[in-house]
């Protein structure tokens, strides 16, 4: 369905939100999620058992949608499936901006559900009303305070949009991207069965948002494949689009059909669509958040050659292997760099051929700065990656390493001034709690910090492939 951008803008930025059918049994989770809405929040609930709890939360309840003072911009419906057409008819009558239908039991369930889905889709199309779902968590816009879940932030927004056929993946993408990389979302949508609005509609809509620099998508199936192909072909060269396809195997496809009633389709064809349009394939939540961070933080990438600075000799071997397996390279440095490094680098218990084992040279910020500068200026090097042993680095940052915070300063200074893409990679080993803290410290200081070097290599490779393709278009 061709969507109406202005109307969707209204739904994403509501001045009045109504939750229909929220329940004590669900701990009134919808009303609690929406209490951050900038504007008015109302409830519609007919059950006498549920109403007192709603009123206790300070939310005004009505027994009919038609009684709510309008105009209503966004309605979240959480009513039994049999009642859904009736309440949807009220939404049409009240001329609400748009509706998210949380209720499940439609095309993913049985013949009755399929018939009901057809019925509600036809109602929405006839009325020209955006219908999100059914079987979904609806919209998220932190600036407007519209949320899928109480676990999400509100107020500040970021440069990323996400669309997902799963509420879980949509919410976790949001919270994980923020937790791991300190990056917030501009908007997201969980759209379940996609009875009316489909993947291509949301991608097209997000691509027209000037705030959005990266779009992520979790897809189980698509109804209008041609349209998705055309939209991706148009959008992907301008804005990176990550596609995480669920239902890649027979088992996964079976699950997708019972989850969102989706026809998962052939994985070979999906791979082709992603490759041909210049979208970016990702296969997990981790890959999705890391690749998003690499795209946003590192800027356009130019090459495969990395200078790898590792904390021990053993690590330098396996990190090199890991990067090489991702089709990245660890090139020899120029003679000028070797001459320069040779003049001060302590080679007893370390080496600098690339990969570098900097263990005994990483004690002072001055030396680290010198090494980073040489690598940054080396013509054979496209990017610089620094491994951080969590236990060692965390201790150093905490204690200021004999009263010297220069190690940390050297990293943050370099991240600010480097000419070439620079990132850090944590090796947490057993210091998991400290790793979380260190990642946060790095992220807040503007340094991209991947949770592990394996994740760094995958994210860099995927981001690089995007930029290389975009450069050819």
């Amino acid at each position: 369905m061709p969507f109406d951008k202005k109307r969707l803008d209204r739904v994403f930025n509501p001045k009045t939100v109504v939750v229909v059918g929220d329940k004590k049994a669900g701990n009134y989770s919808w009303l609690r999620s929406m209490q951050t809405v900038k504007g008015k929040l109302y409830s519609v609930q007919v059950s006498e058992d549920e109403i007192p709890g709603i009123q206790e939360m300070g939310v005004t309840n009505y027994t009919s949608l038609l009684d709510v003072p309008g105009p209503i911009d966004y309605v979240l419906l959480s009513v039994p499936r049999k009642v859904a057409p009736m309440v949807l008819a009220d939404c049409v009558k009240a001329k609400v901006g748009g509706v998210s239908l949380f209720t499940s039991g439609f095309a993913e369930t049985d013949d009755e559900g399929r018939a009901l889905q057809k019925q509600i889709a036809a109602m929405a199309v006839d009325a020209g009303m955006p219908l999100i779902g059914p079987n979904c968590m609806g919209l998220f816009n932190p600036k407007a305070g519209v949320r899928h879940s109480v676990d999400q932030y509100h107020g500040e927004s970021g440069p990323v949009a996400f669309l997902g056929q799963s509420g879980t993946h949509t919410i976790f993408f949001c919270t994980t991207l923020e937790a791991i990389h300190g990056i917030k979302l501009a908007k997201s949508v969980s759209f379940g069965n996609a009875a009316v609005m489909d993947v291509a509609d949301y991608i097209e809509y997000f691509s027209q948002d000037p705030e959005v620099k990266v779009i992520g998508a979790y897809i189980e199936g698509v109804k209008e494949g041609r349209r998705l192909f055309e939209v991706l072909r148009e959008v992907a060269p301008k804005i990176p689009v990550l596609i995480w396809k669920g239902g890649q195997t027979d088992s996964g496809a079976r699950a997708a059909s019972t989850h969102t009633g989706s026809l998962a389709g052939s994985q070979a064809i999906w791979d082709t669509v992603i490759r041909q349009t210049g979208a970016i394939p990702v296969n997990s939540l981790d890959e999705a958040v890391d690749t998003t961070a690499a795209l946003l933080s590192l800027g356009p990438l130019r090459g495969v050659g990395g200078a790898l600075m590792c904390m021990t000799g053993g690590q330098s071997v396996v990190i090199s292997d890991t990067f090489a397996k991702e089709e990245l390279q660890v090139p020899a440095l120029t003679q000028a760099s070797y001459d320069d490094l040779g003049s001060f680098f302590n080679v007893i218990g370390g080496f600098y051929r690339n990969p570098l084992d900097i263990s005994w040279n990483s004690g002072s910020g001055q030396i680290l700065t010198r090494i980073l500068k040489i690598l940054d200026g080396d013509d054979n090097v496209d990017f610089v990656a620094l491994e951080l042993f969590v236990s060692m680095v965390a201790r150093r940052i905490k204690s200021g390493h004999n009263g010297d915070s220069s190690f940390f300063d050297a990293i943050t200074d370099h991240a600010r001034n480097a000419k070439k893409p620079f990132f850090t990679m944590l090796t947490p080993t057993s210091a998991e709690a400290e790793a979380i803290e260190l990642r946060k410290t790095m992220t807040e200081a503007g340094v991209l910090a991947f949770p592990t070097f394996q994740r760094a290599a995958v994210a860099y490779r995927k981001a690089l492939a995007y930029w290389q393709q975009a450069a050819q278009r």
Partner: protein
Amino acid sequence: MVMQETVALARKEGRTLLTEVEAKHILKEAGLNVVDSRLAKDKAEAQATAKELGYPVVLKILSPDIVHKSDVGGVKLGLQDESAVGAAYDEIMAAAKKASPEANIHGVSVQTMAKPGLEVILGITKDPQFGPVLMFGLGGILVEVLKDVAFRIVPLNKRDAGQIVREIKGYPLLEGYRGQEPANVEKLEEEILKLSAFVESHPEIKELDLNPVFAYKDGVTAVDARIVLEGEG
């Protein structure tokens, strides 16, 4: 227009599979390189056509009911003279009637024996969600056993054509391996783009196979062709 006439005829006869001769006429009209195949309804006509085309020739059973011609003994290669053509005709008819007694047999197709080149295949299938998809691969065991094929959604642009050819693992064979003559990759890409454009403008095509296509130093030519139409309604 060959395409419209052929489709109309097939519809009238209630079939969706076009014969090799029909498929090749259509493709030739669309500007693709195919080895000419002519219909011969009986033995004498087969011999006369062979003489006209020049030896050696290939004879293939021509029936909309027989999809896998070589499986039923319906293909005879390298026929050098009139008597060989006559004998091949009899053998093909006997074999076809034995394997598929109910088949509606139009006769045989007679075509010049193409000089061997590097075998590649081009195919079109329809994905329920994304529509026509073009497949490219190297012929023989590389496609059958190793499934070394690449896909692109139709329509392809120039860049897609360049990439689909280079995406298969066997690509170095096209560049000429161990003294073998290289194939003309540019001509192959052109052929792929022509096929994509043809299929894009004919949604009535459900499946299409050019197998094999011979890729030479100076061009490419499809030796066999198969087209299946969408059912009516």
